[in-house]
């Protein structure tokens, strides 16, 4: 079953009066429970793909379908089905967590949206759900009243993960989830992400420039360069026997580090 699909998606920006093509004619689909990596260099269009899937951005041409329904022409408030089924972990937790909110409110916010408010009506139950979500990423209930600046970088990203998981989505989109973190905590956060995804049999779209991370977490990989998909296939196949020179270049670049 296809969760999210991009069909002939194109994104064009105007930069200093000149059109700049960020994404050209991209077809991409994520099935239920599937773990896909999107890899490419900076400016390749991989983040734009992730943003299209969550309706954070509209395509200039083409279509975005969630559970087979186009979201392109739907106003934001009518995208409830999308909000209930997909969530996102952003690159930099320093920016993605509101500095003036407590963890309780940050993690609980998705439950207050009209889509999910019906599920957990009483705010006491909401606190329970928040404690449970924080617990699943290894953060104790005594931290609920802390502010983000009182946490370490790794803890912050785990809070962001708890927020993404609390709505019990089918699809998790993670945009470079560890590249803003200290090298020392990257493995811990990645292992936690992998464990949560397996346990909940979530579909995962992992955007990364780091092939090792993709190898660790994903089964399928899509290689993007200059706004187009240049190669895709199973992780083993693509990373062992790259067909496209750009893929080979990416692999070489990783090895030489």
């Amino acid at each position: 079953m296809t969760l999210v699909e991009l069909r002939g998606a194109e994104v064009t920006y105007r930069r200093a009066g000149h059109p700049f093509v960020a994404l050209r004619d991209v077809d991409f689909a994520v099935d239920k429970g599937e773990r896909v990596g999107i890899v490419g260099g900076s400016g390749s269009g991989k983040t734009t793909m992730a943003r299209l899937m969550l309706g954070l951005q509209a395509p200039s041409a083409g279509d975005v379908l969630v559970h087979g329904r186009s979201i392109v022409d739907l106003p934001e408030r009518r995208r409830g089905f999308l909000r209930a089924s997909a969530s996102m972990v952003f690159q930099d937790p320093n920016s993605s967590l509101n500095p003036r909110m407590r963890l309780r409110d940050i993690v609980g916010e998705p439950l207050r949206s009209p889509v999910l408010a019906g599920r957990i009506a009483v705010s006491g139950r909401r606190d329970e759900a928040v404690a449970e979500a924080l617990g699943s990423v290894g953060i104790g209930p005594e931290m609920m009243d802390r502010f983000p600046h009182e946490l370490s970088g790794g803890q912050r990203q785990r809070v962001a993960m708890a927020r993404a998981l609390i709505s019990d989505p089918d699809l998790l989109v993670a945009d470079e989830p560890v590249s803003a973190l200290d090298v020392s905590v990257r493995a811990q956060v990645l292992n936690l992400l992998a464990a949560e995804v397996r346990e909940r049999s979530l579909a995962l779209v992992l955007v990364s420039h780091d092939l090792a991370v993709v190898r660790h977490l994903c089964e399928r990989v899509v290689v993007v360069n200059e706004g187009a998909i240049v190669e895709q296939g199973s992780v083993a196949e693509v990373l062992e026997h790259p067909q496209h020179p750009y893929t080979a270049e990416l692999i070489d670049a990783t090895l030489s580090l």
Partner: protein
Amino acid sequence: MRHVTLYLGAGLIGVIVAMAVVGTFWTPYPPDAVVGPGLQPPSAEHWLGTDGLGGDIFSRLLSGARICLLIGIGSVVAAAVVGVPVGIFSGMVRGWVGEIPARLSDILYGFPALLLAILFAAALGGSTWTATMAIALASIPAFVRIARAATLQVMSQGYIEAARVSGTPRTAVAARHVLPNIAPAVGVQLSVSVGLAILAEAGLSYLGLGSGPETPTWGRMLREAQTYVFSAPQLALWPGLAIAVATLGFNLLGDGLRDLLDPRLREIR
């Protein structure tokens, strides 16, 4: 010493607030009555002397502090209540719908605030109420502008996208995410605007467009002192000094708050 301007501003405001509090409950003489011969120099009975009509200057100064703060703070709070939501709206809504309030407010900004207040007060007649309304109207654009600029900055943060992904309605985004994060910028503007408003109120009173003769405001005291500017120049000194202290106090507080709250400035130190 750190935060000098902040403490100095707070101290000066403290003096004015103390005067207003004392003046509300007690003045040596009734502030609006003739209590002795006119133009007396400072003495044990009249600490700052008497004005041209024989009113006690110290009493009038004390009771003027309350009016000055009421009009200054009242008009600015009213302006913020209107201007901040408009600025947030304008910063959150993309395209021409968001541009319109910003441009309208820029037009209003183009008029010198005092001139606008004079026009307004002249059209409706001078009174405490019209002076407050006029100053409030003239103070709105500054709040629209600061709230919009701060909102645009907040909207580029990741937590706004995170809220969108989780389906948070825009009104909730404005209340939970935008307002708390633009509050410091608005607070600075509040303080600076109160300083300007006090100055504007004094100007309007001086021109006879503010409160009526029964209310001894500092601007009115200045106006009355003008008649004796050559024979008794000290009459203009006290209200002038009071206006300067109040205006300076709020401006310093605003500057101090800005230094305290702006992380970029903090890094530089």
